[in-house]
């Protein structure tokens, strides 16, 4: 048994050294896991989720890296010697892994600049949903229909990001057409009352309801409402139908497209023979 442990794999590195390294790394991984799990439990109510996750990742990989550097001499690796070799290898790897490095650097900038946080609702180049995680190389999005989308950080960093919830309030808009024969002032009054009755349609900034344009088929009203960013979609869904039904209840209708056609000459209908006779008698 001792002979096997003393068996040299390369240079002065024996099987014992290798087992020692594996054990140390295993213990370090388990230790890192225990530390991060306990920290997560202790701090989950006291810190923002994105900050907590970032801190836990740094601690987790920090413990593993420290352990790895600690056991490098057991593997016969001299760090000073690695510097020269590392320089050459680094250039080679650098060329080979440009995109990885670009993603890494973008990830560092994303984490420091914080245009997005875990839990935010965002849209990046047509992908909209909740930010699940901001990793060092990629950003994970859970789309509104529950799909998992991984976007490389370089793409996230160089694209325009729309963050729907960074600001505390946001505005949405309806365009509502009513008949020319309807009382537009009454319609405005009804819509304003409905907005006022909705708790999350904000009092300030003041909602706007006004006649926006005289269309081909309808008088078009524009309705602009501010709502808390986290509630805007439910307010938007809720109010539109209420406005529609309340306007109709008050005799104000949203018209179908219609067109009045005038003919230069009287239009002659092509009536059947029987019909002609019946008309003559």
């Amino acid at each position: 048994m001792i002979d096997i442990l003393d068996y040299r794999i390369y240079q002065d590195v024996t099987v014992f050294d290798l087992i020692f390294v594996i054990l140390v790394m295993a213990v370090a991984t388990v230790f890192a896991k225990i530390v991060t799990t306990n920290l997560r439990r202790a701090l989950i109510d006291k810190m923002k989720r994105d900050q907590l996750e970032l801190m836990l990742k740094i601690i987790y990989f920090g413990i593993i890296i420290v352990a790895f550097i600690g056991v490098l001499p057991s593997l016969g690796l001299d760090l000073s010697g690695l510097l020269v070799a590392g320089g050459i290898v680094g250039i080679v790897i650098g060329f080979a892994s440009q995109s990885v490095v670009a993603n890494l650097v973008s990830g560092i900038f994303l984490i420091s600049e914080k245009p997005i946080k875990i839990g935010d609702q965002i849209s990046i180049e047509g992908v909209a949903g909740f930010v699940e995680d901001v990793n060092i190389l990629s950003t994970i999005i859970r789309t509104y229909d529950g799909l998992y989308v991984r976007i490389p950080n370089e793409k996230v960093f160089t694209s325009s990001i729309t963050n729907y919830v960074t600001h505390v309030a946001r505005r949405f808009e309806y365009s509502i057409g009513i008949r020319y024969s309807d009382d537009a002032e009454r319609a405005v009054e009804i819509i304003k009352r409905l907005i006022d009755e909705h708790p999350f349609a904000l009092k300030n900034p003041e909602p706007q309801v006004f006649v926006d344009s005289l269309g081909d088929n309808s008088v078009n009203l524009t309705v602009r409402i501010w709502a808390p960013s986290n509630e805007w979609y439910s307010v938007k869904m809720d109010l539109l139908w209420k406005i529609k039904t309340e306007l109709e209840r008050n005799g104000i209708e949203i018209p179908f497209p219609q067109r009045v056609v005038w003919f230069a000459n009287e239009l002659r209908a092509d009536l059947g023979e029987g019909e002609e006779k019946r008309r003559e008698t």
Partner: protein
Amino acid sequence: MFGYHELKDFSAEIGEYRIKIEKEGVFYRYIRENGGRKEKNVFTDSGRLIVNPVEPVNLPKEITNFLQIRFRKPFVSEPKSTVEVYATFPIEIAVFVAAKKSVGLVDVFSMQRPKYTLYGNPREGIICRYWESDLHADVPSVDRYREGVIRLRIVNSDDEWIEISNAVFDIYGMKIFYDDEMVCSSASVNILSPKVAETRFTNKPLRDKMKKSLELYTARRISIAGVKFVMEWGL
């Protein structure tokens, strides 16, 4: 109606609401009726029911912990002055169950229609529960199940005349008191400059022998960082 009640055969009417407790086998059933019906099962051996006014930021759902009281007529305060005025604030009524030295929230309802607003700008401002009130020189008479009376101690520390038209409070510091006639609270508004004021609730009832309400943030075990709020987006 506000106060501590035995669970057994509890029944009460508050405005258009009717709340009651029914024993069902090993647990109690809490029922609130007002057009619609809300039911909740409560399991306790020897609990008591606590009904009292709470901080008005819970309905229809909790999205903020700030209350903005907008004065219907702006108040112009002279330099280096202190004045006490009275305003009103909305009431939400909470039903707690208390047992084994701990309380749990059963229900929150209100006879006021909630409305929210933005104080400040959309980028940095805060969402607040919105309330409009007149300022009174004396304690106004209000329905205690709908509105409470808040004593505002307005201190103008500046050297200029300053007009103030609203007060924003961090509701987590709110202390609410009640008796058989009214619900009340107290706060101070310290005007530091024409655009900045510091608001803070104080722990003083308007009258002696008023009972202190059980607070929602206490029941929910929310830690309180500070009770004052700095109004930095205008008065």
